[in-house]
């Protein structure tokens, strides 16, 4: 017995230490692992507007450490939702307005992951067996609809969502995607969204969200993205990460702008937080781990400013400093930044964008934070663009047919970049298209035609891969996933697809059917172009979640316009009309059949003969009687027997005519 315990002893020791550590970890984990951070990124845009991008991130530890029913910071509703529907990943966005890819950029993390199609977009990946995914999706849409006061429950119908293969987001089958282009987004959707933040809009950066000023903006998109790794059987467990982002494009109050216009047209308007939001930051949310404001200057702007600096250097040589843009001549900041980051970029040797960081921990109600930017010299710059500018439109007229066209125009800015990027002789530019079309737009996928630089091109030359699931009437929408490869030197390209407009059942028309029907935005992805902004940070432990999000490599992505297709709308009292006319026709048929059955042909003929032997036929007799009555004279039965034969013949002719008329009518309408 003596020799045995040694090993067991050590094992026990290790075990006990492990247990100790794990319990300590669990205790600390369950209490302190739920974290929250708030960040705001401000960015001047070339067209005199300002982009404000709020980024809130809440994380919950995985289920194994916390028992999942007790929450300290993480919103209970979201955690319950994730657990109930086994959501692996989900993104919900509410957007108003359209992101202007030309002016506001299309090649940076904000535009490719935060620019969203108008209305509601929802996609979710479920970690359930394949046959239960649809049921989970339906339940999820209903729950979200209740949670966010929106009609997301319309996405429940199988005609509104799609399950695609690889076009939009790579996943293994459990993904569903749906959009509601016509959903109006307003403050009733923002309030529940804010309710998920621990400080709501009572303190911290979210207190800036003054409803009138953010809804007055040009673009407004609130997004909720969550990833959970709770149901992964393997791999690192990171718990639930809830990322809430609000992107707004604002312009500061216009009455001031008119003045600047009159004095100096070229000068960008100066702005401050209080002028664009109408509020100031009065302190951080005390529960946030990090609470920072960033000001980002784009590459183009930095280049312009450096040029300006060079000019200044020529005039005044005492400004020779290695401080970069620290004391630049182009603009002035009302608050001195705490840190300045330069973008690490190997591809752009010319210049890189600059980020100013402000930590708002030291600001309070008595000393509010109000960042202002005053331009000193007029600066003109442009934003980085996606390699191709895409737009989508409808061709054709009438209520029967039409054509969807997607056109690409090369932005030309990235040509050098392109050649540098691939550097091969057969340089190809890849673009993926993902498009969902409702079933009443019956797209003929075989009519796909491709034009490159205005010339028709064989499909096989351009389309690398294609996956089409045609729509099924009243069951599923049509989904098209395409991989296109254009030559790098392409100037413009276009795709056309013909379609027929279908008929809906009378119940399926929305209340305002005459307004037309929306075709959701198509998604254009450039998988060879990755947006990632890597800023040179000091190796501090608390890395900003937003900047690490920017660092993630994601393909450049843009959405096209929503199309409005007018469909023929019926007279909505039609069913009753149809019922009435059918019933009347049946009744007529039935009645005449009965009368024919009751007829006594022999008797009638005898009457006719009798009357013919005595007097004229009935019709002329009636006519003469009528005319006599009209003339007010006493009627005398005509005595001439010759009329009878003419009457019989006229009646016969009349019958023949009626039969012929019916036949013609039948012939005409049965075709």
């Amino acid at each position, binding site marked *: 017995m003596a020799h045995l315990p040694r090993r067991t002893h050590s094992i026990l020791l290790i075990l006990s230490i492990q247990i100790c550590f794990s319990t300590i970890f669990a*205790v600390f984990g*369950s*209490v*302190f692992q739920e974290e929250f951070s708030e960040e705001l990124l401000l960015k001047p845009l070339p067209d005199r507007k300002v982009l404000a991008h709020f980024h809130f991130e809440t994380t919950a530890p995985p289920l194994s450490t*916390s*028992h999942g*029913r*007790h*929450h*300290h*910071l993480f919103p*209970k*509703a979201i955690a*319950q*939702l994730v*657990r*109930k529907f086994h959501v692996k990943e989900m993104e919900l966005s509410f957007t108003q307005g359209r992101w202007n890819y030309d002016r506001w950029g299309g090649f940076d993390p904000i535009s490719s992951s935060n620019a969203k199609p108008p209305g509601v977009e929802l996609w979710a990946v479920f970690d359930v067996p394949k046959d239960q995914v649809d049921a989970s999706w339906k339940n999820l849409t209903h*729950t979200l609809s209740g*949670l966010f006061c929106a009609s997301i429950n319309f996405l429940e119908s199988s005609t509104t969502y799609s399950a695609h293969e690889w076009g939009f987001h790579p996943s293994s089958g459990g993904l569903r995607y749906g959009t509601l282009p016509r959903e109006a987004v307003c403050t009733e959707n923002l309030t529940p969204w804010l*309710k998920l933040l*621990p*400080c*709501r809009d*009572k*303190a911290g950066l979210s207190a800036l969200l003054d409803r009138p000023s953010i809804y007055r903006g040009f673009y407004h998109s609130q997004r909720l993205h969550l990833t959970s790794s709770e149901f992964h059987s393997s791999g690192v467990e990171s718990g639930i990460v809830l990322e809430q982002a609000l992107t707004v494009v604002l312009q500061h109050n216009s009455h001031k702008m008119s003045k600047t216009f009159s004095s100096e047209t070229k000068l960008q308007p100066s702005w401050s937080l209080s002028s664009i939001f109408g509020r100031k930051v009065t*302190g*951080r949310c*005390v*529960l946030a781990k990090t609470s920072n404001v960033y000001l980002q200057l784009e590459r183009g702007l930095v280049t312009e400013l450096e040029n300006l600096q060079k000019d200044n250097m020529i005039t005044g040589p005492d400004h020779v400093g290695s401080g970069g843009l620290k004391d630049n001549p182009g603009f002035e900041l009302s608050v001195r930044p705490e840190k300045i980051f330069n973008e690490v970029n190997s591809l752009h040797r010319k210049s890189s964008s600059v980020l100013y960081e402000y930590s708002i*921990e030291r600001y*309070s109600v008595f000393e509010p934070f109000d960042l202002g930017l005053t331009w000193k010299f007029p600066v003109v710059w442009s934003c980085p663009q996606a390699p191709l500018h895409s737009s989508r439109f409808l061709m054709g007229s009438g209520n029967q047919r039409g054509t969807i066209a997607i056109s690409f125009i090369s932005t030309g800015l990235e040509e050098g970049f392109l050649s540098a990027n691939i550097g091969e002789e057969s340089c190809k530019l890849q673009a993926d298209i993902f498009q969902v079309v409702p079933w009443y737009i019956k797209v003929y996928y075989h009519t796909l035609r491709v034009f490159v630089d205005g010339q028709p091109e064989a499909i096989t030359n351009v389309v690398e891969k294609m996956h089409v699931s045609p729509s099924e009437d009243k069951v599923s929408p049509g989904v098209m996933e395409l991989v296109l490869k254009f030559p790098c030197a392409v100037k413009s390209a276009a795709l056309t697809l013909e379609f027929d407009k279908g008929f809906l059942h009378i119940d399926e028309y929305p209340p305002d059917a005459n307004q037309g029907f929306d075709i959701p935005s198509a998604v254009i992805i450039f998988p060879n172009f990755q947006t990632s902004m890597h800023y040179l940070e000091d190796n501090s432990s608390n890395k900003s979640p937003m900047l690490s999000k920017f660092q993630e490599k994601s393909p450049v992505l843009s959405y096209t316009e929503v199309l409005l297709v007018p469909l023929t709308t019926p007279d909505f009292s039609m069913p*009753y009309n149809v*019922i*009435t006319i*059918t*019933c*009347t026709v*049946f*009744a*007529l048929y*039935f*009645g*005449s059949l*009965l*009368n024919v*059955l*009751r*007829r*006594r042909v022999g*008797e*009638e003929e*005898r*009457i006719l003969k*009798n*009357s013919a032997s*005595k007097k004229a036929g009935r019709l002329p007799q009636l006519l003469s009687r009528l005319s006599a009555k009209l003339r007010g004279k006493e009627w005398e039965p005509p005595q001439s027997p010759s009329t009878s034969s003419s009457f019989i013949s006229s009646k016969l002719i009349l019958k023949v005519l009626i039969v012929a008329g019916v036949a013609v009518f039948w012939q005409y309408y049965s075709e």
Partner: protein
Amino acid sequence: MAEISEEPPNPIPPQPQPQPQHTHQPSESTIRKAKPGLKRLTLTLSVLVSFIFAFPFLYKSVEIHRAPLPFREIDSLSSQIGSSNNHPSLSFPCHFQAIFVNFNNSNAETLEPLIFDELTKLTSNATSQCSTLSVKLVNSGPIWSLIGAVDFGGDDESVDEALAGVLGGEKVYSVVVVKGESEEVKGVVGKNRHGWVVGRVSEVEAAERVAEMFVKVFVNGGKEEGFIHGEFMPVGADGRIVLSFNLLNSNPHDWVYDWDFQAIDDTLLAPIIKALGPVANISVESQVLYHTPKSSFSFWDDKRKGYIFSTKDLPFFVNSNEWHLDTSIAAGGRSKILQFVVYVPSAKECPLLLQLPNGEISKTNGFISPMWGGVIVWNPQGCLMDSESQHPIRQTISHQDLQKVFEVFMGQFRQLFGLKSDNLYFGSSGTYSLLASEKGFSEWELDFLARRHTCFNLHSCATTLGSLSRLVQSLPRMIIMDEIGKQVKYSLEAANLAQRNASLGLYDASAVSSRQARSLAEDAFFHPSIMSVSYYSFEHCFAVYSPFFLPVSMHVLLAALREWRRYKIENRKYLAWKAEVKNNS
């Protein structure tokens, strides 16, 4: 063509005798030699008859699918359960035994009628769930001798344990009366189904006390009359309760408190949830909320060194705008959510104290709202704020404090269930102390709850099914799915099972099946097909079918009428001719 058939029937006699066509000379056209044919008359009449006979078939074919509901059984259940909740006709058998120690044997005969008298006196004026009371007096036997060995001089806990060892296991309520030396008569109700009275008591007094303990405590749960009504039953229609615990930091700029709820859940709540299993299916969740000021005012009181809010401010205390005590997604649609709120006041209203109507400060510093939950104000120790640091760190409420808070919660929870929150019962014959169980509810209280819930559930099930049957009968054109019929059937079965179990004295089983009956009845009543626009009105039916049936019935009726008239005229003519022939001959 039509005009020919529509012209009035011209009776044309076959003889070549010339005559005017018009009917205003009937005397000349009243002769018919042949018997009038029946072909057309039978044809039109058969069409009419077939129409009349086909009508029920048509009505059947346009009839809406209605699952047959057992209306008679629903009515019989309603009449069995009784219309009023206060006088349930449901009967539970309860068995009592009274054990007298140190009494002379000769007293047994006198004691028994005494106790019965007292019992009938108490049950006659009060409503009681137990209709059949059986009382057994134990004067001898093994139990009696074992009881004799129990030392009643010890503290209550040990006596209780000892008695539990002797009496435990049986579903019989027992009271042990020990004639002792002490002047002070002590009555204690234990954690299980027994109580004891120790002291110098006479027979009459003992009988009074025993009867009171039976009726008021064991049967009626020791609750005050009319404290919380029976209809305030905090169990959801699907038999589930979600206990949602919320820690509200009124102003996190002053201080931020967190709690380790997991520990509480594991140690304190789990046994309670298990004990209440037959009554309700309980789940627990918790969250911490911030920036949640109360919406009522409080004022500073110099004497008490605190901010006072009084009971008349309570309706405004809960700030539904800022307190986002969400409904739970995890809970089903008809679960009951009980919100329990720990309110941490901000620095400018700390300490916050609740003043009772009599001017005193509440010891628990909390209040309940029936069917909603409870609120406790928890003041941080000393109300000291770190003034130098702007950003407070998150502190955790200490385990001792949390335990205290949970004791109050337990009391509130018991009150929400209609039980007493303190452990003293003041009866007419004396004061009884009720021993508190570590499970939160003692055995006899659980029995009481099970009985009460059975009554309530069955009553609610009967009323729901009754209103469903009334609704269904009042709307004859409403679609009723088969599923509803099935649910109603199962609900009735479960209700009957609950009644049977109740009459056998199986409280827990009857509570479970009555819960099932109620939830099925509610499911049937709130079935989505009933809720949706499923009413296909008779007017609609008429509008759809009248364009066909109105003209067709006109044709059929007129044709039949005309043929009948013509036949009559012709027949008369034929008969006249026949008579003429006869006369002529």
